[in-house]
C-alpha cells in the first residue's frame, strides 16, 4: 500500500478521525478523552484558553506525541503506527517560529523541498519566494526578518510540499489585520480545492470564519460544531445593557455578577453583556434593574465570545 492509496480509500471524507485521546505529562492529564472528526475541505477552528491542550492535541495528530490512551487516524493513517506516512502529507506550522534562524529564506525553503523529495528544490524554493511576495529578500537571514515576514515564511514553508492537511498552531498571533484577512481569504480558497485546515486561534473573528469550531478548556473538548450550533447549544439568554457614555457600568457589573441566575457579565465598550443559562432566573435577577431609567436593556443573541467566556468559567469551576 502506498501513500496515495491510504489517503484515497480510508479517508475520502474524514481526514481526522480520533477517539478518546488522552495525553498525560508527569501523571497529569493535559488532554482528556478527546474525540474529533474533521471532514475533507473543512476549516476547523481550535479554540480555548492558554494551556488548555491545543498544541498537545495538534502534536498527537501529526505523530509528534504518542497518546497515552485512545486511537484514531489522520489522512487514513494510524496516528500511532503510521506517523511516517502522515508526515509526508501534513504541513505543520508550529506555534513558535521553528525555521533555521541562521539560514537565509532561500536556504530554508530549499532544505524543506529536499526533505520532502521535491524534484527541483531550487525551482520550488524560487516559486515559493515569488508566491509569498518575498522576492528581493531571498538571501536575507531568516532570523533577521520582521515578525510578519517570519510568519509568512513559516506558512510558505509548511505549504511548500503541497500537503493534504494543514495544522496551523496560532498562525496569526501578532500579525497585522490586513495580513490576517489576506491569510484567511487564502485559506478559504485552498479549502475550496479540498485542502483541510486545522487552525488554533484566539481571535473571535477568525473563529467565525471557520466552517467548524471546537472549544477546549483544561484538556476537555467542551463543544464542537458550526458557529451557529455552538451558540445555540449553549442555551444562553443574553441582554445587552448600556448607559449614556458608559457611566456607572463597572459598578453595575460588580452588582450583577454575584446574583443567582446571572452566569456571566462581560463589558463590551459602552455596554455590558449579561447572560444566564436559565432564562427565567436571569429575568428575575435583572428585573429590578430594568426599572432604572438610566439603563437601556436590550435582549440579544449571545455572541460566540459570550459563549466562550461562559464555557471557560464553567470549565474552571469544574476543574477546581
Amino acid at each position, binding site marked *: 500500500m502506498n501513500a496515495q492509496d491510504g489517503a484515497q480509500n480510508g479517508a475520502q471524507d474524514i481526514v481526522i478521525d480520533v477517539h478518546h485521546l488522552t495525553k498525560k505529562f508527569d501523571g497529569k492529564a493535559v488532554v482528556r478523552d478527546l474525540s474529533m472528526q474533521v471532514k475533507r475541505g473543512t476549516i476547523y477552528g481550535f479554540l480555548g484558553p492558554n494551556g488548555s491542550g491545543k498544541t498537545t492535541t495538534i502534536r498527537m495528530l501529526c505523530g509528534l506525541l504518542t497518546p497515552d490512551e485512545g486511537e484514531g487516524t489522520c489522512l487514513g493513517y494510524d496516528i500511532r503506527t503510521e506517523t511516517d506516512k502522515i508526515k509526508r502529507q501534513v504541513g505543520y506550522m508550529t506555534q513558535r517560529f521553528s525555521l533555521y534562524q541562521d539560514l537565509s529564506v532561500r536556504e530554508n525553503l530549499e532544505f524543506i523541498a529536499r526533505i520532502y523529495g521535491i524534484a527541483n528544490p531550487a525551482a520550488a524554493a524560487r516559486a515559493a519566494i515569488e508566491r509569498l511576495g518575498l522576492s528581493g529578500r531571498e538571501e536575507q537571514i531568516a532570523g533577521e526578518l520582521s515578525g510578519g515576514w517570519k510568519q509568512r515564511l513559516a506558512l510558505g514553508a509548511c505549504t511548500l510540499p503541497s500537503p493534504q492537511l494543514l495544522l496551523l498552531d496560532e498562525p496569526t498571533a501578532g500579525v497585522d489585520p490586513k495580513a490576517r484577512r489576506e491569510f484567511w481569504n487564502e485559506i478559504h480558497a485552498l479549502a475550496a480545492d479540498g*485542502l483541510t485546515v486545522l487552525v488554533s486561534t484566539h481571535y473571535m473573528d477568525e473563529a467565525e470564519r471557520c466552517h467548524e469550531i471546537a472549544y477546549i478548556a483544561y484538556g476537555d473538548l467542551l463543544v464542537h460544531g458550526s458557529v451557529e450550533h455552538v451558540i445555540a447549544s449553549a442555551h444562553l439568554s443574553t441582554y445587552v445593557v448600556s448607559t449614556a457614555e458608559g457611566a456607572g457600568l463597572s459598578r453595575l457589573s460588580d452588582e450583577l455578577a454575584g446574583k443567582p441566575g446571572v452566569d456571566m457579565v462581560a463589558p463590551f465598550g459602552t455596554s455590558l453583556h449579561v447572560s444566564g443559562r436559565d432564562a427565567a432566573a436571569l429575568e428575575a435577577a435583572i428585573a429590578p434593574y430594568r426599572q432604572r431609567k438610566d439603563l437601556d436593556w436590550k435582549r440579544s443573541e449571545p455572541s460566540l465570545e459570550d459563549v466562550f467566556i461562559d464555557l471557560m468559567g464553567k470549565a474552571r469551576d469544574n476543574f477546581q
Partner: protein
Amino acid sequence: MTHLIPTQAPRRLPGDGFWRKTWAMLLKEFIQLRRDRVSFAMIIMIPLVQLMLFGYAINTMPRDLPTAVLMQERNDLTRSILAALENTKFFKVTRLPRTEAEVDQLLASGTVLFAVEIPANFERSVRRGDKPAMLIEADATDPVASGTALGALGQVLQTALSHDRDVPDSAAMPFEIRTHARYNPAGVTQLNIVPGLVGTILTMTMLIFTALSVTREIERGTMESLLAMPISPVEIMLGKIVPYILVGFVQASLIIGIGVSLFGVPVVGNLGMLAALSTLFIAANLSIGYTFSTIAQNQLQAMQMSMMFFLPNILLSGFMFPFAGMPVWAQYVGEALPLTHYLRIVRSIMLKGASLGDLRYDGFALFVLMLIAMTIAVTRFRRTLD
C-alpha cells in the same frame, strides 16, 4: 492577492530518498557551520594553541614498562640480570622472544617498549673480563617513558650484580650496556606530543561540535519542525556527523603540517592508512558527542558531559602518562576509550611506519567503539516530543 500553496503540486521524486534527505541535512549543517564564526575560529585556534602549550613535556616516573628479553644463553648470570631488571620496577619482563625478528615485531606493534638482548657466550666473556655488550633497544617514541628508565638502568644493574660472587672485579661494570633508542633516537618530546595532539584535539573538537548539535535544535525550537518532517533519525545523524569528518581532517592536517614544518616530526608511515584509520576515530568521537546531545537537556549539560568524557581521555589514554605504566584497572578503562587506540595508531604510523597488520587490534577496537557509539546515538534519539 498572493498564494501560499503552489497551484500545481510540485513533482516528488520516487522512493524513500535516504541519501537525498541525508544530503539535505548535511548541506544545511555545512551552511550553519560556515555562518558560525566562533566555531569556525575554534576549529583553527584550538590546534594552534594546544600545539604551543604542549610543546613542553610533562615529566613522569613510569613503572612496569613491558620488556622483552632475548637470551642467547641461559645461566646464573643471565638470570641475575633478569632479576635485577625487574627489581628496578621500571621494567617488567612480559615476553621471552627467540629471534631478532620477533623482537622487532614486538617493538613495532608496541607490545613491549624495551627489548634486552643478551648475546651468546655472554657469561664466558664476562668472566674473561672482555666486557661484552648487552643491547637494550627502547621504543623512544615516548621519550619521557623510555628516557627515565634507561637513565636509571646502568647504576641499578651494577649495584645488583656487585653482590653476585661469580662476577670478578665487582667495582667496575663487568659488561657494557649498549642502548639503542629506536624510532626517536634523539628523544625529542615533540615527536611524541605532536601525534598525541592530533588525537586529543580531534577528540575535543569532534565531541563538542556534535554534543551541541541536537540540543541546539531543541533549544531553538527547530527540532519540532524537523521531527514533523519525513526524515529518519539515521538520516539526521549522518547529516550532522559527515560535515565534521571533514572538519576533523582539516584539523589533523593542520597539526601534522605544523608538526612537520616547525618541530621536524617525521611521517614515516603511509598517510593513506592514517587517513583511513583517522576517519574511524573521528566518526567514533562524533557518535559519542551525538549520544551526549540526545541525552542532555540543554547545551550547557551537553558541554559538561563532553568535558567529563574528555578528562579520562587525556589522563588514561597514554597521552599524558605512559599507558603501560598505569595500574591495571586504569588500563582497562583506557582500552574502552577511542583515543587510546588512536594514539597507538597515529604514533606507530607517523614515527615507526607500522603496517596495517601491526595495527589490526587497535584498528578493530576503534571500529567496534564507533559502531557501539553510533548504535546508542540512533536508539537514544527521540523521534517524538514525549
